[in-house]
């Protein structure tokens, strides 16, 4: 079976690997190259701590388990010049400031109900876990399963593994498609037409536009996020630490600037602080408001950061669907077209499980996941026939 995977971000690279390993003839098409966009403009948090019980949490738990083996394997198979995934199962610590304790406690209790490990830390254990955290913190929950990796390098590694399994990379923009008997027979690209039996739309925040070009528009939009990077320093942050209002921002439909602060250190010694959420289209000029708002929250969490020098900031565009659920599965309008997008702020974490669902949809591969909640045909994501 000839499959074109369009978009070589983390989602496309993971899908290409999964499909190629299962014997499909895969062409990975990207207009810029591997990890050119969102998957190099984000953080690499693999979180279960921020998921409320529901389909996305199931996907996250499944993916979290798969990442451990996958990252090990990608690192083991590394060849010349290839960077490491930098996978680290460091765990997360979610904190509440006074007034927020009850909401966080309730949230954690619900998560325990679906098997997420969430342990309340008493003052002594919190001090041991994160000695530099603000004494103002009223409650802290430890999530041992939260992990992180370097998303851009990992995407490169996934694509390289796919190529080792026979996938071919084509750097070209997909401009349209040709159908035969209601099914996609070929995609048109700036480097010529490619004949296919199936197409997987992994175009991230551009998946809506690509869908339109393939005759199946989707309501996927960009949500801008800004991240701060400090100068390197001796390690003073040991987990992914964030305040519980993150939980509010993820599910929010509000277009205005929102921030929540996830603070983490990287192997390079820098501290990464993310991030904001704004719906401003593909606007490339975030200005300083998000930077200042994130900094204000981060210094509340870790007062020592006040004196820390900000080295740079960067931003990316999360692909989101109106109902904040990933869109994975066969398009109900165009035969042979599948989508794998809309992962918003969790595409890195959700990539392995997404690839599994895509292999299920395209090749009929087995999966223990329930694909139904993510199907493109569901109401509310603007897939009007």
């Amino acid at each position: 079976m000839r499959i074109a995977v369009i978009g070589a971000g983390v989602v496309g690279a993971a899908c290409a690997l999964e499909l190629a390993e299962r014997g499909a003839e895969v062409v990975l098409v990207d207009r810029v190259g591997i990890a050119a966009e969102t998957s190099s403009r984000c953080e690499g948090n693999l979180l279960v701590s921020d998921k409320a019980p529901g389909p996305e949490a199931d996907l996250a738990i499944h993916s979290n388990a798969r990442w451990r083996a996958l990252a090990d394997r990608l690192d083991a198979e590394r060849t010349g010049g290839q960077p490491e995934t930098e996978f680290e199962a460091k765990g997360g610590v979610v904190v509440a400031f006074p007034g927020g304790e009850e909401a966080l406690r309730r949230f954690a209790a619900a998560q325990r109900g679906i098997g997420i490990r969430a342990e309340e830390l008493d003052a002594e254990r919190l001090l041991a876990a994160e000695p530099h955290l603000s004494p103002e913190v009223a409650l802290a929950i430890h999530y041992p399963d939260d992990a992180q990796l370097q998303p851009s390098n990992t995407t490169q590694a996934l694509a390289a593994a796919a190529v080792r399994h026979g996938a071919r990379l084509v750097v070209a923009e997909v401009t349209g498609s040709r159908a035969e008997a209601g099914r996609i027979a070929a995609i048109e690209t700036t480097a010529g037409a490619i004949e296919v039996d199936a197409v997987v739309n992994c175009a991230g925040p551009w998946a809506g536009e690509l869908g339109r070009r393939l005759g199946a528009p989707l309501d996927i939009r960009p949500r801008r996020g800004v991240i701060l990077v400090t100068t390197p320093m001796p390690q003073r942050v040991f987990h992914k630490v964030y305040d519980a209002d993150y939980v509010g921002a993820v599910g929010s439909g509000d277009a205005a600037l929102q921030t929540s602060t996830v603070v983490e250190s990287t192997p390079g010694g820098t501290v990464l602080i993310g991030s904001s959420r704004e719906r401003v289209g593909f606007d490339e000029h975030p200005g300083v408001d998000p930077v200042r708002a994130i900094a204000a929250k981060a210094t509340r969490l870790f007062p020592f950061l006040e004196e820390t020098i900000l080295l740079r900031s960067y931003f990316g565009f999360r692909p989101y669907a109106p109902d904040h659920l990933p869109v994975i599965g066969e398009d109900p309008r165009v035969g042979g077209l599948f989508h794998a997008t809309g992962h918003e702020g969790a595409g890195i974490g959700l990539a392995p499980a997404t690839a599994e669902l895509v292999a299920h949809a395209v090749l009929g591969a087995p999966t223990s996941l329930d694909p139904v909640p993510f199907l493109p045909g569901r109401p509310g994501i603007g897939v009007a026939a």
Partner: protein
Amino acid sequence: MTRVAVLGAGPAGLAAAEAALAAGAQVTVLDEGARPGGQFWRHRPGLTDPRMQHGVRRFEQLQSALAGAVVHSGAAVWSVELREPGERGGAVVLRAAVGPADGARREAVVVEADALVIATGAHDLALPIPGWTLPGVTTAGAAQALAKRDGVSVGRRTLVAGAGPFLLPVAQSLALVGSTVVGVHEASRIGALAGGWLPKPWQLLGKSAELAQYAGALARHRIPYRIGSGVVRVLGDERVEGAVVAQLDADWRPRPGTERVIECDAVALGHGFTPRLEAAVMLGCEVTGDRRGRFVVVDDGQRTTQPRVFAAGEVTGIGGADAALAEGAIAGYRAAGLAQDDERLHAALRVRDRMRRFARRLETAHGIRPGWTAWLDDDTIICRCEAVAKRAIVERAEVPLRAMRLATRAGLGPCQARTCGRAVEAIVAEARVSATGVTAAGQAVDGSDSAAPGGGDLGFERRPLLAPVRLGELGGADRPTCGEN
């Protein structure tokens, strides 16, 4: 009254401030330097040999004009923003941290204005060379600054190498502060020099007198001046002990067999200048060019493509201090509201137009040629902050620039690719060409900005913070921005 903010107090910024004041504007000048003067006027009364000072009288005029302006020195401007016309306050907002960079909490300064003149100048550029990380190697600009400001030489026997007329004052200053200058090695060959300098010598009036004066100084100090020649390796264990020079062909590729060793304890390298574009980029002003040189686009009135934002000096083209002064004056008058045909602009416009032609000729004669990468070894450090060697960059050259950078860490350190960006881009471009066989003179190295409307080929020039700043200095949020609780 029109409020004009001027970012940068070099020749361009000072001339802009003077002109805007003369046209009746209320002017605020910000510069991170401890004193106004920019890269050009660094002399200190009593310390600097008067023969190293140029245009001091003009500088004094400009300084006395500044009495009418608000001047923030030691002010690192870390952000500039445009506001929508309808919003309250000024159209342009600048935020700065004022005080010594390593000092305790700096003061936060916010400047609002109706118009902005970007006069952020340029950094001098040294291309990587095997051995260039040895102590004793500096940029020509740093050697010049040390000589002018502190009366100190970088070495006892100094070799000056690179390209452009700027090497001449550097050699002169080094000689004046007591160094033996063992040679000035100009990479361009006679063909390029003739093409750039000779066809219309009358355009160089004014400039040629200055150059003749430097030539005289070189002769007096018996400094050999070689063209078509460059340093291809710096020698030494703990510090500089010598340098290998070689003849360079028209593309700056070393000619095999022409190498010879020159003993020296310091090497001053200046291969050109890189404009400080980040403020203009942050504001969304259009930038032209590619990895071989990028500049802010301006019209005849020094207007950028953003309303109420002007640019002058080296950010718009490398033309020297006289060009910067003329452009600054035009920008200042226009920012203060004068019309383009106002007679107060006439003199400056004439000088500017002549100097623009001069700048074009400088580029023809001395612009960096692509063959320089041939003097690199595979293990030559290209990015000094993160100690990234050429090999690592070549190995990842085929991946998009953004991902290459994250994988190799090239350009991710404290200087944010200000030092290595151009070299990294050249190495990537060359590696891609040799991988694909496509000759790609001037082709965009990367499409990683392809999704950005008007993003163009910005390479490493997108830096959302103009200067390093402490988290505590950002001053928190102007408005409540909590995620809902």
